[in-house]
């Protein structure tokens, strides 16, 4: 064996890696779950081609006028049948021939019905001979980067980095403490800093696999854009992972049982799942709580990743979230080193 392989830091890191890879649940949560989530959300919130709206009319003449619009399909029906079709959602609008002209029956709280009202009225007016005052022409765009999937991928990445770093560090350390393994290690000549360092090293190695796997998938399948420098995105991921590793270490530094550790872990992570803008923009929360929301490490991480991926911002432009992340790395790490319970 070479000197490197025999060194305690290498051995400790290798053990961390082996233990992680031999835990099927861990593999699921780290690799499979974020992709399932991205696929699910990608399907649910996909941008569909503009829908063709179903409408009804009481005379064939009206039906023909309506059918001439590409955005509508129309059927002829009497008023009773039409009202029933409206109530059951089979049509969005019923055009009724009256003595004065035409009446539209629809639900104005339904956006699709309001669209149908505009389209139907335009089609009927044009059929009756209306001329457009201004010539208008459509130029359609389908821009990547503005879709929900583009928004949610950096959010999922941040959430995944938080989960794997916190569980990876916190749980393993508390487990070792509970099983008296930590005590046994401390009784050997193992340098203590190497024990903690092995967690960070194995985390960073896993991080490369995890991030490349997830973002590669998002790029290939959804065509999510990468507008900022990739190495800068890498720096963001490393810093995010370090900040959450430090938090995981802090949670694990005194907890004696797994139950206590899971409780603390959820206490730390749950507010961030909701507040930090994983699935929707954090700016939707009231102004009063914004300073608090902005100071959370996950908010900073996701903001910075969206800035890099979607807006192509440089690290210099992302100084504020970077500073917040750095503080979340340094402070919990320093505190946990002071209060860490080795036995």
């Amino acid at each position, binding site marked *: 064996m070479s000197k490197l392989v025999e060194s305690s830091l290498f*051995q*400790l890191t290798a*053990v961390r890696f082996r*233990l992680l890879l031999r835990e099927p649940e861990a593999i699921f949560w780290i690799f499979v779950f974020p992709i399932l989530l991205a696929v699910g959300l990608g399907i649910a919130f996909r941008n569909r081609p503009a829908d063709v709206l179903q409408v009804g009319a009481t005379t064939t003449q009206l039906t023909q006028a309506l059918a001439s619009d590409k955005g509508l399909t129309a059927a002829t029906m009497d008023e009773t049948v039409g009202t029933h079709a409206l109530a059951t959602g089979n049509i969005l609008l019923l055009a009724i021939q009256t003595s004065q002209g035409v009446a539209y029956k629809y639900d104005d709280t339904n956006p699709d019905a309001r669209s149908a009202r505009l389209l139907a009225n335009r089609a009927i007016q044009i059929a009756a001979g209306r001329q457009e005052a201004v010539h208008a022409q459509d130029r359609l765009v389908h821009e990547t980067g503005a879709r929900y999937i583009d928004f949610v991928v950096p959010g999922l990445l941040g959430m995944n980095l938080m989960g794997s770093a916190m569980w990876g560090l916190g749980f393993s350390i508390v487990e070792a403490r509970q099983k*008296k*393994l930590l005590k*046994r290690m401390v009784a050997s*000549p193992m340098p203590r800093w190497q024990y903690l360092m092995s967690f960070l090293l194995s985390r960073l190695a896993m991080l490369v696999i995890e991030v490349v796997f997830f973002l590669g998938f998002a790029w290939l399948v959804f065509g999510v854009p990468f507008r900022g420098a990739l190495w800068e995105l890498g720096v963001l991921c490393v810093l995010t992972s370090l900040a959450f590793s430090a938090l995981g270490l802090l949670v694990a530094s005194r907890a004696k049982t797994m139950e206590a550790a899971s409780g603390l872990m959820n206490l730390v992570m749950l507010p961030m799942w909701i507040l930090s803008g994983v699935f929707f923009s954090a700016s939707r929360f009231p102004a009063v709580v914004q300073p608090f929301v902005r100071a959370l490490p996950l908010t900073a991480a996701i903001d910075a990743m969206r800035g890099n991926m979607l807006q192509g911002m440089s690290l210099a432009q992302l100084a504020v979230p970077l500073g917040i992340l750095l503080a979340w790395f340094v402070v919990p790490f320093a505190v946990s080193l002071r209060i860490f319970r080795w036995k």
Partner: protein
Amino acid sequence: MDESLKSAVLTQQANESGPSLLLRGVRKTYGDVIAVDGLDLEVARGECFGLLGPNGAGKTTTIEICEGLTVPEAGSVELLGMNWHSSANELRQRIGIQLQETQFPDKLTVEETLCLFRSFYRHGLSVDESIKTAQLEEKRRSRVGGLSGGQKQRLAMACALVGNPELLFLDEPTTGLDPQARRHLWDLVDELKQAGRTIILTTHYMEEAERLCGRVAIMDHGKVIALGTPQQLIASVGAEHIVEIAVTGKDENAHGVLDSALLKAIPGIQSHRVDAGLHQFSVSELHTAVPRIFAALKEQGLHLSEFRTHSASLEDVFVGLTGRNLRDE
């Protein structure tokens, strides 16, 4: 030879003449409970020394103080001529430790676990040697989670040995093992003794202490209440045999009242105590004393309902000193 090396060799020589372990006035309390109460101990090189006592006697606290895992409130601790304040790292390199109830990661193999522990030591056995010593060759590539209790305990021993320690601490190495696994582990300790290592072990099994240890300290309530070779300690009971009897009155149901003064007058009977209706006598001349006991009972008109004898053991030493059984607690 450069200066530092020379001084290292000199300390080595100085160390080699002194005791392996020296405790003086060691004291440790947890809240109101005095775990270790002014303990003095001295263990020579190459000795196999046993700390025997019931649960809660302070054995584990004592051994963890020796291992540098617990800091005593008072007293001095010296191992191999060094102490934990100034030479902690050096000491950890030179001692081997097996703790009570360490659970090694289930998903590592025996070999991987030993490679990890070997990497902490500057010098030591090869992983192969330690696997061989612990007789785990067949389990080398098995995961720890699939090992039996005895095999796990032997793995813990292998981890303690992999740094080739001069001084080995074993905390209740056979607790919870079945008799066969226990004998297997005893054989392993025998081999280590023969290799000249100093071993300090705790146990609450008297037969284990008798079988393995050259000297034994019996502990109770944080103090050493007896110290010596198992033979010396057993001799201190005053007689080599123990006779236990229970009696009933003339008609079978009445409780027999034994006049113990009459029995104690019999030559060869050294002491008497009653434990849950059972009379225990320590007896030196079993072949002459027993017929006289029978005769004395007949004279008092008592029936013998139970009768047993056994050779005196460390258990009887403990009972004689404390009035309690080792496994009462």
